[in-house]
Structures are given as structure tokens and as C-alpha cells.
């Protein structure tokens, strides 16, 4: 379990992480989603005690990371796959990490096997592709068989087979009861792996919700209709109490409409239809809408106060994706200094 409380990091003028409060729980894959530069890596560095928070704190099972006496057997992390000494072999890289935590040497062979790097174990890391480096980083994270795992954009550079493998790996790690915290800037990736979702933008918490809820709340369902008899159909629909919105190209869209009912109505009134389909807007769209809001409101440079965040999670049932997180933050905007 990882608990963040008001975690804030400022680099000079730049507020990289802004008052983040959330909890990463065991037994699930928690996705950490945000566009590039949102502050995901910075947050992870603070969790690992590498960067000092400007304010707030973060606890790993109730303790600061620096207080862990057996860090690698407690928590494994992949931050930057290319952050290895190029002249060292994969085996020696893992060996020096194992030794630093008193982990038996046989684990090095085991994790090399797990990630499929055994054939190149004695090769220098310099010659590794990004995908192989990611695997080496994952091997390092798994070395201590830790109960908490954290991966920063692990699928970057992996081939489709590798991506498939890592999705399965993360799910199985969580199924064993481990805490799995994984970041990505791709909504589609998160939708496939994460059970729980934490979304940030410009360092601020935008959503902290279960994946199922997020999908339900953010995927807009509508019925799309194409017809040569637009006016007649609009009449028929409005008499039946259905509101259709005219779109570009002569299309009609009905929010949360039932295609069956609309089709039957059209048939009864002998309106010709060229297209009738149930559709769902993509999660990627919902995500972009969510984070676009954070960019827009960032211009005010106000700090989202604690109340703002509480309000945001409190309004979890709202239908409008962007409105819920942003509005309370604006309402509680305080002038700095």
C-alpha cells in the first residue's frame, strides 16, 4: 500500500506535482495516467525517496521509503529503463543489485528467465534495444520478489508480444495480492490493464476512481442516424419525446438512445433510414477532455486546495467528465501569497 498525502514538488518556478492525495492498494493494478509532463515520474521518484517533496508526505505501508531496511524485497521499481551502466552485462547489473540487498544469487537467474533475457545475460546492456532494456528494468524490479511494484511507462518500446506479456505479468502480480502501480500516458493501455485509475494533469489529481466507474461515467453512448428524410424523422422523434441533435454531414445523434426503439418508430412512420447504429465515444477522448481541462485551468496558477480535491472525489457520480474535477478546484481557488 502506498499512501500519498498532499504530496507537492516544485522545481524552481515549475510546480511539477501539486498536492496529490491518493492511496494505492494491494491486490489490484492501479493505473497512473497523465499526459507527458503531468508529473508521474516525479511522483514516483518521491515515493522512492529519491526526490524530496516540497510539501506533504508519502508512506509505503506506513513507513518512509528511506526507513525500509530491506527495500528491494519490499518494493521493486522500474523508473527509467535506459538508466543502467552500458558497459555492464545484464547479469552483473542484477547481481550488484541483489548483493546490495542480500538477495541470493539464484534470484538473478530466475528473474532473467522470467523476463526472457537469459540468452543475453552476459551481453553488455549498451547493445540492448529499448524493449530489452525495459525487460532488464522489470527483472530488477522483480529481483526481491517484492510485495509492492511500481513501473513507470513499462510498455514504452516493447513490441506487441512484449506488451501482451507485460499486461499479463501485471495482472498476475496483482492477483497474487501484490500492490501494482503502473504509469502510462495512454488511456487505451490503462483500460486494458488497470482495475483502478488515478488521473493527473499538470501535477494535479483529476480523478481517482475504479476503472469500471471511469468507463461507465466517461464513455458517451449515443445512436447515430442517417436518413434522407431528416425533417420527418425529427418530427417523429420529438413526438415520441426523443431529442435528436443534428451533426455535420446531415447526421443525427441521440444521446443514450435505444436503436431498437428508434428503428421501430421509423418503420411505423415509414421513414427511410440509411444508417442506424449504437455508438460509444472512446475513453481516449474522455481522457483528453479531462486533461485538457487541467491545462486550461493551470493558467490561473492557483493551488487546488484540499477542499477542492475532496469535492472532486465526492462528485464521483457526475456525468460530465471534465466538470466534476475542475469546478470545485476553481471555486476554491485561492490567491497565492
Amino acid at each position, binding site marked *: *500500500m502506498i499512501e500519498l*498525502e498532499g504530496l507537492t514538488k516544485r522545481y524552481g518556478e515549475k510546480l511539477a506535482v501539486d498536492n496529490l*492525495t*491518493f*492511496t494505492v*492498494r*494491494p*491486490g*489490484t493494478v492501479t493505473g497512473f495516467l497523465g499526459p507527458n509532463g503531468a508529473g508521474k515520474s516525479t511522483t514516483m*521518484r518521491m515515493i*522512492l*525517496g*529519491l*526526490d*524530496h517533496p516540497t510539501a506533504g508526505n508519502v508512506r509505503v*505501508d*506506513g513507513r518512509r*521509503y*528511506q526507513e525500509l*531496511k*530491506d*527495500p*528491494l*524485497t519490499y518494493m521493486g521499481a522500474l*523508473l*527509467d529503463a*535506459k*538508466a*543502467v*551502466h552500458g*558497459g*555492464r*552485462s545484464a547479469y*552483473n547489473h542484477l*547481481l*550488484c*543489485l541483489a*548483493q*546490495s*540487498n*542480500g*538477495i*541470493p544469487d539464484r534470484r538473478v537467474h530466475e528473474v532473467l528467465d522470467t523476463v526472457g533475457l537469459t540468452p543475453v545475460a552476459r551481453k553488455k546492456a549498451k547493445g540492448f534495444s529499448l524493449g530489452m532494456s525495459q525487460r532488464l528494468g522489470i527483472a530488477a524490479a522483480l529481483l*526481491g*520478489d*517484492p*510485495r509492492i511494484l511500481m513501473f513507470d511507462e513499462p510498455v514504452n518500446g516493447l513490441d506487441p508480444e512484449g506488451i501482451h506479456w507485460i499486461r499479463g505479468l501485471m495482472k498476475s502480480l496483482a492477483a497474487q*495480492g*501484490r500492490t501494482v502501480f503502473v504509469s502510462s500516458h495512454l488511456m487505451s493501455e490503462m483500460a486494458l490493464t488497470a*482495475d*483502478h485509475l488515478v488521473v493527473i494533469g499538470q501535477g494535479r489529481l483529476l480523478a*481517482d*476512481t*475504479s476503472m469500471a466507474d471511469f468507463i461507465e461515467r466517461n464513455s458517451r453512448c449515443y445512436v447515430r442516424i442517417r436518413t434522407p428524410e431528416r425533417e420527418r424523422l425529427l418530427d417523429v422523434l420529438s413526438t415520441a419525446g426523443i431529442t435528436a441533435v443534428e451533426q455535420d454531414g446531415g447526421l443525427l445523434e441521440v444521446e443514450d438512445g435505444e436503436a431498437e426503439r428508434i428503428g421501430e418508430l421509423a418503420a411505423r412512420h415509414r421513414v427511410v433510414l440509411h444508417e442506424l447504429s449504437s455508438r460509444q465515444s472512446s475513453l481516449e477522448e474522455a481522457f483528453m477532455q479531462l486533461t485538457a481541462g487541467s491545462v486550461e485551468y493551470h493558467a490561473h496558477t492557483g493551488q487546488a486546495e*484540499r477542499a477542492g*480535491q*475532496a469535492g472532486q*472525489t*465526492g462528485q*464521483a457520480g457526475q456525468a460530465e467528465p471534465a466538470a466534476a474535477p475542475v469546478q470545485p478546484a476553481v471555486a476554491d481557488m485561492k490567491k497565492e501569497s
Partner: protein
Amino acid sequence: MSTPQTPLPQAVPSAWEDGYTSPIPVVRTHLGHALASEWTKIRSVRSTMWTLGVYVLLVLGIGLLFGLIIVNSSSEYQGGENPLALGFFGLLVGSVCIITLGVLTTASEYGTGMVRTTMTACPSRTRVLAAKAVVFFLVAFTVTLFSAGVVALAQTALLTGNGARQPTGEEWLKGTVGVSLYMALLGLLSLVMGTILRHSAGAITIMIGAVLAPLVIAAFMYAQSLEKVQEALFNYSIPSQLAIFYANSDGPLRDSGPSGWDPLWIILGVTAAAFAGACALLQQRDV
């Protein structure tokens, strides 16, 4: 605390004891683990082997070359001089290698980003630096002792046939163990500098500059009023201090500047101060 309102399917809230328990025995890590790790690191990269190899070649090559030149030259070796003194030149040139290796031990991790992995595996930053320091110091000392020892033996053998005297016990001690300690400390100072600057090329340049600059500057100080400064620069420059280990133990004491084992205490003090500063910086900075 704002926890999510939505119920989580499998999560058991606020129970840290729950979740996965590893079959791997949990070990309370200590300095010994960090030492083993740093030893693996230093021996598993080829640049270490190259730098040390070149170092040994320079010390042996230059040392033996000077010995042979003097043996074969018609002029007799001055009977009163310390015959070990010819080892000085090899070490002076070789100091570039020791400085490079020292700096790379720490700074290269910043260059590659490996330092984040290191500090994640061992969150005690002082422990990491201490382990690096110990491993590097022992490697540098051992290698220097071997090379300087071989050169000293060879030169005594060559020169005593040419009329030079046998070195005294203290001269032996200073010319082998003494210079080895001094060179290892010079490398350790470079290692600490690598941590402070976190930049390989910058730290190497500064350290080589620190070795050479005082002598070069002193050489161009003609002005009478600067005589004292010139003398201090000369006496306390690293080459001059290294040369003190080869001074005649029964020769006349110099009227100013360090003598005897002083250079060792000076560099020890400087390195200790730099080490303390580096530790403070490590604690304070983001990795």
C-alpha cells in the same frame, strides 16, 4: 484524507499486513551488502580494467625506463640520493588514471542514471558513498602498492650495481606504502569530487587542474612581492608533496613547507572534509 468513494473489488483497505508475502528471506541490509555490491560494480566494467591497466603500465614503464636510462648513461648515479626517487615520475603521470577511475566510480552513475537504481536499492546515501569509497580505496591502494613495489625493487637492483646506496627502512616504507596511500587518497578525493559535481568530464578536469595548476602558476610568478605565494604554491602542490615521500630521510630538512609524512595528513584532511561536504550534499539534494 480523500480516499476514493467507490468500493474496490478485491482491495482490503488499511491492512498493510495483507497482500503478498515473499518466500525470499528478508535481510536487514548493512554496509557489508553495499560493499559487495560496489565491488561487483567496479570489477564488472571494462573501463575499470582499462584505466588500471594503463596506470600499471605507466608506473612500471616510466619507472623502469628512467632506471635503465640512468644505468646506461656514463654519468654515475649520485651515491647519496634515494634510489627509489625515480619511481616518482611514473606515479605523477599515472595520477591521471587514478583520478579518472575515482571520478568515474561515482560520476558515471549520474551520467547513466544508474544512481537512481543504486539509491533505490540502498536508500542510505552515505552508506552508498562510504561503500564506494572503501572499495575504490582498497583497489587503488593495492594496485599502486604492487606497481610502486615492483618499480622500487627493480630500481634498487639496477642502481646499486651502479654505485647507489641501499634505501633505508623508512625510505622503503615511504616509497611504497606511503606513496600508495597518497595516490589512493588522491583518487578518493576525485571520487568525492565526482559525487559533488555529478559530471565526469568536469570533475576529471578540475582534479587534473588541481594537480598541475599550482606548479604552472608558481612558475610564472616573477614578482618579488608574490614570492611567499609562489613558494606556498610550489611547496603545497600535489607533485611536490608526492616528491616528499622520496626525499632523503637523512638529507637537510627544507626550511619551509611540508616534510616527512605531512603530505599524507594534508590530503587525508582535505579528503575527509570533502567527504563530509559530499555527504551533506547527498542528503540535501534530489538524486
